[in-house]
């Protein structure tokens, strides 16, 4: 589904990614591990076209994303959901409105929004919180709303950049369980994290990245550095 071929990304003198080769298959769950600054976030940003590569190729379903026109990037992003460590919910909107916002900006009509959003909130187990504002929810709940928002376009791929970074163990566990559930429903998931205990629980493919290079790839792996 996604192929990284000799990908290089450079920030001034600093090579964020160096000769990265990686293949992600449909329906996979991949944990991308490494210390902060190893290049995990950069790798995810390249997939959604937020950053441009300086060498190599990235193919998504055989489409070279460096060839995607800037004006077409939004349509690529609608196929890829993304969640972040800092969650990025709009504080003055309820859980329902935050999810609805993503559908609104992509031109869905009100009837569709009204029927879809409750289903998605139900999927992440937060239908009962649909009228709550972010400040009225726990960190884990907020992150689950963010995941709901990312799912609103029914993406084929979900990228999670340190989604549990600010969460305690219980909340982190909830979020991880949700990601696994989404993966089971058929969405490919790439989870970037440096939380070793989390990764060890998943028992799925682990890709280790160090100073911009992939140093280890293991099926059903453990977090090792």
């Amino acid at each position, binding site marked *: 589904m996604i192929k990284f071929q000799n990908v290089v990304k450079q920030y001034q003198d600093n090579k964020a990614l160096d000769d990265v080769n990686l293949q992600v298959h449909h329906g996979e769950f991949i944990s991308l591990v490494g210390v902060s600054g190893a290049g995990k976030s950069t790798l995810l940003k390249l997939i959604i076209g937020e950053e441009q590569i300086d060498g190599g190729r990235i193919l998504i379903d055989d489409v070279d994303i460096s060839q995607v026109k*800037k*004006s077409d990037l939004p349509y690529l992003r609608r196929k890829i959901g993304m969640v972040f460590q800092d969650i990025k919910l709009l504080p003055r909107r309820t859980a329902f409105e935050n999810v609805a*916002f993503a559908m609104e900006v*992509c*031109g869905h009509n009100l009837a569709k929004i009204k029927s879809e959003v409750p289903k998605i909130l139900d999927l992440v187990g937060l239908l009962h919180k649909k009228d709550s504002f972010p400040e009225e929810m726990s960190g884990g709940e907020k992150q689950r709303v963010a995941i709901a*928002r990312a799912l609103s376009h029914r993406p084929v791929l979900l990228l999670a950049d340190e989604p549990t970074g600010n969460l305690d163990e219980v909340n982190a566990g909830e979020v991880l369980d949700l990601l696994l559930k989404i993966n089971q429903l058929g969405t490919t998931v790439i989870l970037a994290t440096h939380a070793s205990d989390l990764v060890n629980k998943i028992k799925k493919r682990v890709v280790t990245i160090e100073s911009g290079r992939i140093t280890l790839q293991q099926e059903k792996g453990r977090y090792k550095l």
Partner: protein
Amino acid sequence: MDSISFLRIIKIGFVNFWRNRWLSLAATMVMTITLVIFSTLFLLFILTNYSIHTISNTVDISVYFKIGLAEQQTQKIRDQISQDPRIKEADYVSAAQAFDNFKAAHQNDPLITQSLNELTENPLPATLHVKAKNLDDYPGIAQQLESDQYKNFVDKVNFEDNRLVIDRLNKILKFIVTFGIILVAVFALIAILVIFNTITLTIYNRKEEVEIMRLVGATNWYIRSPFLTESILYSIFSTIITVALFVPVYYKVLPKVIAYVSPGGSVYGNGLFNFAYLALILFALALLLSVASTMLAIRKYLKI
């Protein structure tokens, strides 16, 4: 573009305008001031131009022939004068015609009619009204008509020299244009800066929303358009305010000024200028300024 997105963009534009209402007000006001200055100078320009036109038309030389000259003689001299290449037209009124005109003009005045009937000979001279092609030729022509060549036939040459007035008006016109361009340019620049800042602040206030919009796949067009909508609102409101201010000026004050400059004259309907045009020009000017400054702000601060 589908209609749902279009309506949402309009709505977001209004919401932005309202959330920053004080800044929006400032932007609208600065734009209004610019438009008011522009309209005032525009009206002054039209008025001065009109005055020059009117006064230029009134300049002429009247030649009064001596009384008792034979018609043939006066006509001969008329033909002689008309040949001067500097002269545009020479309007000849014979003595008999002048008498008839006078009689017709006073036919309702029994006293004058009666006195006229008692006259045995025509007391009115034949006249010739000369218009030059060029304003500056008048003194020369007048001088020639007063010269010895015509001394035996011409009783009086009447030349009203309005050239000084016209000259002055021309200077005023030049001043209005120069000063107007500078003033409008300065205020246009201020308007651009204020709108630029307002839109920049709106962008800053909506940073989070814009970031999320991008991430969830909103098109660039969808992200940018609300800011443009906001700036179009400034143009619409400032045009409406300016037009509202100038409707009384145009329909109440202007006719009086025109009547003063040239009694019986009118700026309406003779193509000199139409208020709808002014409104259209104002809106175009406002739109140009606000959209240009918004585009600048978007390019500089809105990361897509």
